[in-house]
């Protein structure tokens, strides 16, 4: 293997020796190399296979637009697929693998696709889907899946950390080439807070890659002087390795800083990447321009690359793309390419200039004017080129230049389209006003002197200006050069997706001439590089094929992100248990002591059941129900939302919020309340108590606690601002436990300091402030969700576990047990109490059997809309009970209800089961359902049809109250 490293020059550390492997082979590179330049220096030109035809591919760019040299970087949980070898900074110990090849890079079975390429023309995917379905599933898809696809993702967790950060600045400068440096300097010298961001490993942009002269120095030396000055200023932040990947509303820029990607493993406490949101008062885009390829035959063979990339490899990385080069293009930059290559001792066989009348000085190189490269010839490397004039030239590499496309992506992220300039042959950025200007070659300034001046002007933005230094300009003249139609081999437009120049006229002929349709039909511009190289060629070919101008065809939509962003950067630190906070109730420790199995409900951890020995959930929950109904049980209900409402107008305010009335509620009493939405549908329910004339405490369901609070704030501030009322969420401040069962009173009595609990002192729906356990303030409510004689006891959160333990001790003689939400749910279904399954955002008060609660005497949220005919229609689905006709049968939640003789189908749907429970009291499954005109149909036998699980039994519609219909136990 021959070394392609040049003897001198370049921004590499020749003393260093970085070991790395590519497909298992060990190589040595230098500090300052990218993986691409290091591979090229080691004579490795074949770096990957293309997506569709599996053609051998090498590097074609030296930057972010690279479509070909995509590799799998690193191993294990750190493996990252589809990384661009041109952007990977080499480090010692780097491990990379090629992609898209099977079984190996050099021998690839998928390359057979190339032979069958008539199958793979434009619209291949659409056309293929029209083949017989069985063919597709059994034959084509498995083969294509195996052979195609890009790199593979690691299935292991990523061991590295990611961060998110905000930054604010007066001026954000994007790009640190000559334009960006001048812009940053102009702004910085005005004392502005400046952020200068560049996707490159090192600041300097094109000045790192090119031979320039600025201010009597080399461009590189000049850039380092400016960077040193910027670095010395306290209000300037330099951000290399930072890609600004999107421009968003409010002049916010998204950025990804690759903090540790250049290291084998991040340093301790450092993230791999940091995701930035940068809010900039104004920003200057100085992203430069991208050199376009030329569509000639074999323009993808390893060794063919952008002329500017070939210069970069020689000037910056001291690597020769080949020992002999043909330089081909239709603009004057090809002459500087030939000059630079010769400067480094690389032999230039010829300059092929498509323009007959080109005037630039070839500097002693053989020039062939008025001809074009029709085909590059070679397999895994270029061997020669055929010209349109019949000439044949042997060479190892081809430098091509189709012209320059300003990198306008960010300037178009908020919807404006770029405009075509027929003289520059480039789409120029749209005018986005002062807050985001574009400067330098990104704005179509093709001369270095123009870039320096434009950067200085846009950076100063009308403020105190700085003078641009003198520099040497390269010649710029250009003629269109998109597609060499004399090509015999495939001429690629989109390298990564293997879309060829021929595909575009074909798409137009088949009716997909709109640029957005042609894009999707041919897949041009749809790969991970988003068409950064060839999209403008595609537009030109489409324009010619359809007789339109470039402007008429227009560009496809530029969307964030400019380059791919890793999921890790988006996720930041919010992964695993850090994804959302965990809310534990004040009784969590107590429940844990009692052996609770917890269930996540929203953010809350709720005790679900309390198994003893080998009980499963059903055995445990059934025992908990039997114990509670037989004696006494205790349940943590702290997750219910609790809102303290105070003020002169507190009662009036609650009257607005609930469909029933609270201003008339007696002090020391509680009332069940139903809240509607303004459209008349039930929103939430709960019990609200009046502790004093001007003091209420509301409860909400667990799920809606935050939403009800926000709704209250809206109702008060936006709708009824005149009401004198304040309210605050006290959910976290109180531990609340339900103590239920015939022995609940005897149990709780032991905790009371003074209160003697009788039906007179604590009647049903009482709400009292008491003290327990020698002075602990508490609230005692006689409420029942279980249907038993029951209480809820609330104590300040920190006393919660202590109080719960005391209740357990007091109830010991009665055989008390803790019960969880499973038992709670069984008991509420036994009693026909509605919950989330019935309060599901589609039901009215009437549907729930609570129509009589709705006041007609006052205004409240939802009053008017609840009266609409559709909401009071008797045929609406209403809450009913459902039980199997054969008590040994099981009914399942979600099953649909059908008339007894109807064919099971959704067309015959009469309603559905909203919740079921195994009732240990009745020894059968019972449920609640929503059923058309249900209250009038008690006793009807229906089919309970669970089509999803293939289950059908007969059920009987009944009263929702399955157990203790007379509510005797409540008052026992």
């Amino acid at each position: 293997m021959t070394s392609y490293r040049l003897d001198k020059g370049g921004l590499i550390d020749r003393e260093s020796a970085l070991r790395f492997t590519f497909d298992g082979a060990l190589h040595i590179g230098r500090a300052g190399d990218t993986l691409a330049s290091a591979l090229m220096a080691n004579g490795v030109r074949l770096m990957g296979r293309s997506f569709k035809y599996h053609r051998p591919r090498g590097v074609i760019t030296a930057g972010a637009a690279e479509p070909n040299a995509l590799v799998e970087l690193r191993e294990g949980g750190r493996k990252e697929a589809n990384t661009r070898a041109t952007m990977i900074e080499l480090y010692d110990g780097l491990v990379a693998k090629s992609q898209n090849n099977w079984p190996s890079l050099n021998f690839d079975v998928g390359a057979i696709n190339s032979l069958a390429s008539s199958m793979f023309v434009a619209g291949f995917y659409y056309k293929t889907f029209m083949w017989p379905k069985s063919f597709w599933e059994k034959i084509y898809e498995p083969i294509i899946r195996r052979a195609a696809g890009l790199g593979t993702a690691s299935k292991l967790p990523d061991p590295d950390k990611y961060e998110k950060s905000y930054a604010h600045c007066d001026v954000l400068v994007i790009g640190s080439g000559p334009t960006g440096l001048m812009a940053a300097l102009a702004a910085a010298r005005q004392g502005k807070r400046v952020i200068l961001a560049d996707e490159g490993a090192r600041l300097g942009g094109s000045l790192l890659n090119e031979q320039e002269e600025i201010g009597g120095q080399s461009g590189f030396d000049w850039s380092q002087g400016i960077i040193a000055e910027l670095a010395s200023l306290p209000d300037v932040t330099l951000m290399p390795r930072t890609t600004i990947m999107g421009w968003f509303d409010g002049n916010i820029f998204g950025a990804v800083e690759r903090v540790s990607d250049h290291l084998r493993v991040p340093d301790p406490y450092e993230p791999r990447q940091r995701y930035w949101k940068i809010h900039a008062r104004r920003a200057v885009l100085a992203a430069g321009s991208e050199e376009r390829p030329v569509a000639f035959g074999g323009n993808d063979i390893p060794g063919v690359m952008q002329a500017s990339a070939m210069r970069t490899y020689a000037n910056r990385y001291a690597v020769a793309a080949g020992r002999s080069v043909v330089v081909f293009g239709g603009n004057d930059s090809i002459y500087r390419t030939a000059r630079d290559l010769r400067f480094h001792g690389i032999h230039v066989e010829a300059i092929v200039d498509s323009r007959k009348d080109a005037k630039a000085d070839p500097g002693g190189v053989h020039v062939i004017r008025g001809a074009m490269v029709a085909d590059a010839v070679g397999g895994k490397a270029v061997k020669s080129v055929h010209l349109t004039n019949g000439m044949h030239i042997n060479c190892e590499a081809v430098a091509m230049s189709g012209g320059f496309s300003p990198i306008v992506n960010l300037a178009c992220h908020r919807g404006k389209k770029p405009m075509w300039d027929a003289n520059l042959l480039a789409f120029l950025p749209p005018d986005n006003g002062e807050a985001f200007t574009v400067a330098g070659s990104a704005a179509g300034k093709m001369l270095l002197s123009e870039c320096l001046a434009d950067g200085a002007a846009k950076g100063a933005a009308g403020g105190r200006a700085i003078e641009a230094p003198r520099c040497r300009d390269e010649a710029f003249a250009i003629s269109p050069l998109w597609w060499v139609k004399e090509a015999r081999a495939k001429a690629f437009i989109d390298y990564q997706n293997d879309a060829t120049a021929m595909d575009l006229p074909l798409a137009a002929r088949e009716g997909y001439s709109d640029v957005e349709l042609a894009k999707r039909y041919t897949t041009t511009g749809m790969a991970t590089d988003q068409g950064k190289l060839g999209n403008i060629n595609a537009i030109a070919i489409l324009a010619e094929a359809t007789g339109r101008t470039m402007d008429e065809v227009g560009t496809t939509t530029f969307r964030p992100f400019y380059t791919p962003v890793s999921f890790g950067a988006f996720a930041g630190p919010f992964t695993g248990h850090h994804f959302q906070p965990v809310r534990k109730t004040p009784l969590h420790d107590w429940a844990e002591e009692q052996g609770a199995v917890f269930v996540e409900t929203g953010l809350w951890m709720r005790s679900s059941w309390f198994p003893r020995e080998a009980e499963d959930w059903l055995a445990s929950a059934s025992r908990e129900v039997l114990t509670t109904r037989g004696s006494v049980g205790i349940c943590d209900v702290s997750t219910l939302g609790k809102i303290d409402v105070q003020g002169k107008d507190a009662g009036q305010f609650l009257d607005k919020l609930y469909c029933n009335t609270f201003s008339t509620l007696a002090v020391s009493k509680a009332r069940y309340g139903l809240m509607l939405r303004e459209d008349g549908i039930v929103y939430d329910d709960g019990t609200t108590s009046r502790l004093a004339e001007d003091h209420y405490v509301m409860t909400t369901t667990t799920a809606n606690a935050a939403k009800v609070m926000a709704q209250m704030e809206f109702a008060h501030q936006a709708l009824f601002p005149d009401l004198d009322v304040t309210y605050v969420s006290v959910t976290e401040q109180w531990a609340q436990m339900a103590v239920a069962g015939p022995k609940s009173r005897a149990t709780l009595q032991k905790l009371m300091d003074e209160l003697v609990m009788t039906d007179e002192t604590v009647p049903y729906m009482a709400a009292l402030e008491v003290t327990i356990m020698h002075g602990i303030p508490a609230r005692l409510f006689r409420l029942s969700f279980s249907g038993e004689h029951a209480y809820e006891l609330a104590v300040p959160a920190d006393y919660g576990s202590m109080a719960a333990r005391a209740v357990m001790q007091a109830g010991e003689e009665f055989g008390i047990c803790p019960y969880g939400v499973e038992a709670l749910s069984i008991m509420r279904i036994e009693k026909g109490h509605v919950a989330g399954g019935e309060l599901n955002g589609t039901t009215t008060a009437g549907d729930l059997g609570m129509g009589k609660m709705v006041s007609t005497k006052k205004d409240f949220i939802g009053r008017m809309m609840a009266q609409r005919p559709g909401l009071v229609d008797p045929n609406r689905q209403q809450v009913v009970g459902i039980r199997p006709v054969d008590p040994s049968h099981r009914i399942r939640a979600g099953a649909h209800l059908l008339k007894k003789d109807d064919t099971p189908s959704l067309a015959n749907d009469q309603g559905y089961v909203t919740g079921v429970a195994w009732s240990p009291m009745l020894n059968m499954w019972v449920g609640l359902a929503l059923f058309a005109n249900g209250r009038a149909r008690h006793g009807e036998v229906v089919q309970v049809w669970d089509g999803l699980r293939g289950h059908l039994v007969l059920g009987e519609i009944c009263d929702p109250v399955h157990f203790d219909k007379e509510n005797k136990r409540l008052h026992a």
Partner: protein
Amino acid sequence: MLIPCPHCGTRPVEEFTFLGDAAPTRPTTNDPSSMEAWYEYVYLRNNPRGTIDEYAHHSGGCRAWLVVQRNTETHEVYGAVTARAFASRKEAVAKGEQA
């Protein structure tokens, strides 16, 4: 996007929850003849191109309901007032129209 909360100063949009157009006013009567006005209040919203006043809850901040004025086309935020101030301004305008 930044929202200038009258209580908290300029804060990022992530701290806010939006509810939509603040133009409709809740009818003050429950008279059956007002059904059409209620229907409009609950369901009908303009979708203007340009300036819109929108309810925004500073749910991750001071918890005030605000009315944020924004351009639907450019997403430029012109300013924000409390929903309370907005309501009294609307009331004043309505009274002025009656007079």
